[in-house]
Every structure is written in structure tokens, then in C-alpha cells.
């Protein structure tokens, strides 16, 4: 199969959907002629013009609220935040005017809006350009939250987002945006709420999210040389969260570690652990462990930045600890 970068994979999905559906438009800063800070829209401006690739002022709250109104009246906005950090100024609109609209109108309004942006720590982007924030959106009712880890999932999940009628947070870790991988041509959709077993194994279950999937797989490769057989699950969407796949794996392995770059308290790992302890209590042979980024704002300097992100060696150590319990 041909290979594409992650960002090219999402752009292909976007391009195909825009070609077919004239009600899709994109807003953001520099997503027009410039093609997006991360090339998310490059080439599309010439194809679809300024109304459908609409450069905005620095009015995040404004254009999110505007897109909420647009989604309610027959069009399908894609908000491209560049860095997802900039979504925070629109948080009130998202919580009260986007996530709740279908419910409050008893299903008479639809809310087909995609909110996309680069997440995560890396490249000394420092604390205003390193956020992820997805546990917050998983906490709140009304959002779908996708965190694809590989190019094919990026295309498949973005396609699903573009065809659905619900608000979707589509979050792309900066450190994997330009990774290459095989991506199916043509139409390719992956339903939300289906985890991917990134590696099959029998000794322990590792749930890894976004950029942590690759690092976890690398750690497993290393441990495999010592005979450790770890199963790695990539949930792909954290709302909805495919607990069935995780529970099934834990049933088999009896041990669970969740690896996630974002903050630990009230995070995705907490939710997974809480559900496993409730529904898979008898399957567990050991405590559930979580490995998260440090609970601090993101510092700039490389040695500090490295210190707060789980590294391959940290993951390896955590797996050893889990197996030793």
C-alpha cells in the first residue's frame, strides 16, 4: 500500500469530503492560502476558495461560536486551531453552545462540527503550545474525542468525523504529524469507539494513547527480546472509549498499565482503571498502574521538557514494575 504522512492522510480525507459535500468549510488562522501551520489544508485553498477555507482573525471564541451557529443551520464547519491550546478561549462556547445543543433541542438540531488541532509536548514549544486537554472533553457529555496514533487511523477517523453529525475533537500529536505509514486509498472510515490492538501479547495489557503508542511499542520490542509478551491497545477514540477490548485483554493478561502523556489526576488512565476495577475486578492479578506526564505546566528547556514526558525507558521500567507486582 502507498505510504502517506499522518497530516497528508487527514488532508486526503478532508479533500475527498469537501469535494463531495459543498457544506463543509474550514476556518482558522492561516488555513487559507498559507495552507495551515502544520500543512493541514495545503493545496485546498486553490481548489475550494476563500469561503470554504476561511482565514480568521485571532478570535477563537468568536469563530467557534460562529461555527456553532453554522452547524445548526445547515453547514459543516471544521475549526482548525493550529495548536489546540488556542481552543481554551472558546471553552464556554464549546461546553454550553456546542456540546449541549443536540440534547437541549431534543435531537432537532444537529451539531456537525470538528475541532482539530495539534496537541502534546515536544520541540520546546513551552507551556502555551504544548497542551492536550482531552480528558476534559471526555469528562463532559456531548463530545466525541479522537486521538489517532498512526496515519491510517488519522484518515479513517477524520473521515468518520466528517460524515457524522456530532461535535468531534480531533487531536493530532505534534510529534507524530509527519510520521509516514500505509494508508488505504479511496473512502476509508473507522468507526468511533473501536480500539486497535497494536500488538498482541499475553503477559500484560498496555493501553497507550496518541504519541505514547509508538513509544510503548518500541519498549515492548525491547522487552520481547527478554521473552516478555505485552499486549498494546490503542483506544483511538477516548470518547467513546472501547472498554470491551480493554477488559477482554485484561481478562487474558491480568495486568494493566495505562501510558498517557497528559496529566494523571482525573485523566483517561483514571477512568480506564476505575472501569476495570469495577467490571474486571476478578481478572486482576496485580494493581493497575498509570504512567503519565508530570503534573506540571510544560517547561521550555529540553532537559526539563524531557523530564516530564514518559520516555521509552520509563515505559520499559513501568512494564517491568508491573510484571514484578
Amino acid at each position: 500500500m502507498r505510504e502517506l504522512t499522518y497530516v497528508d492522510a487527514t488532508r486526503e480525507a478532508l479533500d475527498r469530503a469537501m469535494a463531495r459535500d459543498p457544506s463543509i468549510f474550514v476556518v482558522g488562522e492561516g488555513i487559507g492560502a498559507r495552507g495551515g501551520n502544520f500543512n493541514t489544508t495545503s493545496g485546498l485553498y486553490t481548489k475550494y476558495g476563500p469561503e470554504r477555507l476561511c482565514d480568521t482573525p485571532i478570535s477563537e471564541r468568536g469563530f467557534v461560536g460562529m461555527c456553532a451557529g453554522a452547524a445548526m443551520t445547515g453547514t459543516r464547519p471544521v475549526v482548525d486551531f493550529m495548536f489546540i491550546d488556542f481552543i481554551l478561549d472558546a471553552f464556554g462556547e464549546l461546553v454550553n453552545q456546542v456540546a449541549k445543543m443536540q440534547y437541549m433541542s431534543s435531537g432537532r438540531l444537529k451539531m456537525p462540527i470538528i475541532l482539530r488541532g495539534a496537541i502534546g509536548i515536544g520541540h520546546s514549544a513551552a507551556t502555551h503550545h504544548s497542551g492536550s486537554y482531552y480528558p476534559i472533553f471526555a469528562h463532559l457529555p456531548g463530545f466525541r474525542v479522537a486521538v489517532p496514533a498512526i496515519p491510517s487511523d488519522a484518515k479513517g477517523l477524520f473521515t468518520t468525523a466528517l460524515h457524522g453529525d456530532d461535535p468531534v475533537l480531533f487531536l493530532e500529536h505534534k510529534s507524530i504529524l509527519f510520521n509516514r505509514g500505509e494508508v488505504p486509498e479511496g473512502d476509508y472510515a473507522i468507526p468511533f469507539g473501536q480500539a486497535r490492538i497494536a500488538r498482541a501479547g499475553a503477559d500484560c495489557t498496555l493501553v497507550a494513547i496518541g504519541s505514547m503508542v509508538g513509544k510503548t511499542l518500541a519498549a515492548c520490542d525491547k522487552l520481547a527480546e527478554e521473552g516478555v509478551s505485552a499486549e498494546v491497545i490503542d483506544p483511538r477514540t477516548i470518547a467513546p472509549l472501547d472498554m470491551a477490548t480493554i477488559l477482554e485483554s485484561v481478562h487474558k493478561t491480568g495486568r494493566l498499565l495505562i501510558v498517557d502523556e497528559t496529566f494523571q489526576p482525573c485523566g483517561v488512565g483514571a477512568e480506564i482503571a476505575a472501569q476495570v476495577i469495577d467490571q474486571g475486578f476478578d481478572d486482576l492479578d496485580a494493581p493497575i498502574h498509570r504512567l503519565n506526564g508530570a503534573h506540571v505546566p510544560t517547561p521550555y528547556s529540553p532537559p526539563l521538557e524531557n523530564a516530564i514526558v514518559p520516555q521509552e525507558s520509563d515505559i520499559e521500567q513501568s512494564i517491568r514494575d508491573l510484571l514484578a507486582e
Partner: protein
Amino acid sequence: MLHQDVQAETKARPNARKQGSEEAGRTTEELHALYRQMIVIRYTEEQLARSHQMGLIHGACHTYVGEEAIASGVCAHLRADDAVFSTHRGHGHALAKGVSPREVIAELFGRVTGCSQGRGGSMHLFKPEIGLMGTSGIVGPCILQAAGAGYSFKLLRSDKVGVAFFGDGAVNNGAFHEGLNLASIWKLPALFVCENNQYATEVPFAYAAGNPNVGNRGPIYGMESVTVDGNDVLAVYEAAREAVARARAGEGPTLLECRTYRTRAHSEGMRDAGYRTQEEVEEWKTRDPIKRFHQWLLENQEADAETLAAIDAEIKATVEEAAEFARNSPWPEPDTVSDHIFS
């Protein structure tokens, strides 16, 4: 200050616009419809106020009494497929957009027959089928959403219009600034109606804003803007006619400031003292938009007293029946409570 001017002018020559040329197309039916619309709002609000005292309304209830001319004058120009977004004080907008008193009252009573099936109450009225896209308990967002409807309508090459109603309180909010600017730079078919009743709850606009005027702010956004006497239904009607026509013609948005006053408390059951004088309230009651228009219709031989009395009586009966209907309506089923979070 313009504010004073508007009041002075109002007193000197009430409804002076009568002689203007722009009402060429104003038929007697239209005038009667405006009157009827205001009465529907007034009676429904008064019914809701009584119902609130009786404990039939469970949450908040912000009435529109004294401001009826605005929703009536603006919505007269809207079609069912135009999109209206409104605020916490939204009963009047819902009614003027075509939601029935039954559906509004039942909603505040929390019944499944309400326009939001009991999920919304006073501050969350929805009837998207006829373009009532929602009222909101948060001050500000409606401005952005109306711009968004405008974006849709422009992209879809339709001649529909997005309309936001909001109070003076929203003017100091970032949503006003960002929304008006976006609508202007993209020439969106939208109308921003500021109902300047001079107070945000108990905080005077004159205190909260560095500039006591709203209608002079359009140029800052490169947008048409105008201030009218919001208690003069014909002034509102004419200004809205122009603004809606401009939007439909693709000529961009308008900011319309309507100077008005709420004569009841901020919300039912709240105290209404300490921040404004009884004299001020009484003075504004003399400028009641319905009384004024009633008088104007008589003076201009557009209606006789009997016709108007008949309308009053008819609406009175309708609203009473609506309250009865609401009271007898079933409650929503608790087991539906998790429906419709997603499409």
C-alpha cells in the same frame, strides 16, 4: 448624548415617523399584526408572572414586559427559515418567531408539550423547525451564532438571515466584539439587535460601559448601525425592514440598538429596588409600547377601539387556554433523560 435625544424626541413627537416615506408598503393588516403580536407577548408574560407566583414555574422567569415592540417589529420581517438566536429574556422572541403561547407556557411549566419538551425552561427555548434556534442562559453567544447562521446562508447562497437579540449587558462582552467584527469582514447576512434596557440585572449600562451608546459602534466594525426608540414599534419595524433587506441582498450585517426599558423585576420573584427609582419605572410605563401603538392606531384611523378590544379579548382567551393546556400537560418521562446527547 444620543440617549437623551431619543427620549426627548420620543416625547416631543411620539411616533413621528408616520409621515416618513419608508412605510409606503405598510398595510393595515401589517399594522394590526404588529399590535396583535405585542399583545400576545404581553399577555403571555403576564400569565407567566402569575403562574410563577403560583409556583407553576420551577426555574427562573425573565419577562419581556415593556420591550414587546422590539421582537414584534423585527420578527415581522422574518420568514420561518430565518434563524433567530436569543438570550435569557427570550419569551418575546420565541413568540414573535411563531412559537405558540401553549408551547412557551408549557415549557416553563416543565411539560413535555413545551417547545423544548421540558428540557429547557425559560432560558432554553427551541423550535428550529420555524427558525427559533435557541435562547441561551449565557450572555453573549447568540451574537456569534447569528453570525454563524449568516455564514451558512452565505455559503449556501440563500437569502436567509441570522438574527441575534441581546441586552445591553452583552455589549461589554468579548462575544459582541468578535461576533460583529467577523460578521462585518465577511459581509454576513445578519442582524444584531441590542435591546438596551439600561440595566444588566442591577448594574446600569452607564456604569458598565465606557461609552453609553451602542448604535454608534457599527463603524468600529465597518458595519451599518442605527439607534431607534425601542418602545416605538414602527420605528423598530422600519429600521428592521431596511436591515433585513440589506442582509438578504448580500449587503452585509447591521447593528440595531433599540432603547427600551424593562418595567418588571429582572426576573420574577426578584426584588426590584435599590438600583433604580420607582419614579424612573413609572416614567417609563408612560412610554409603554403597546399603549403608544394603540393610541397611534386610533389617531391615525388604522383601527377602531372595538377592533383592538376584540384582539385583546381573543388573545386573552388564547393565553388563558394555553396556560390551562400547559397545566394539564404531561411531564417528560424520566427514562428519556439520556436521549439525544448524540445524533
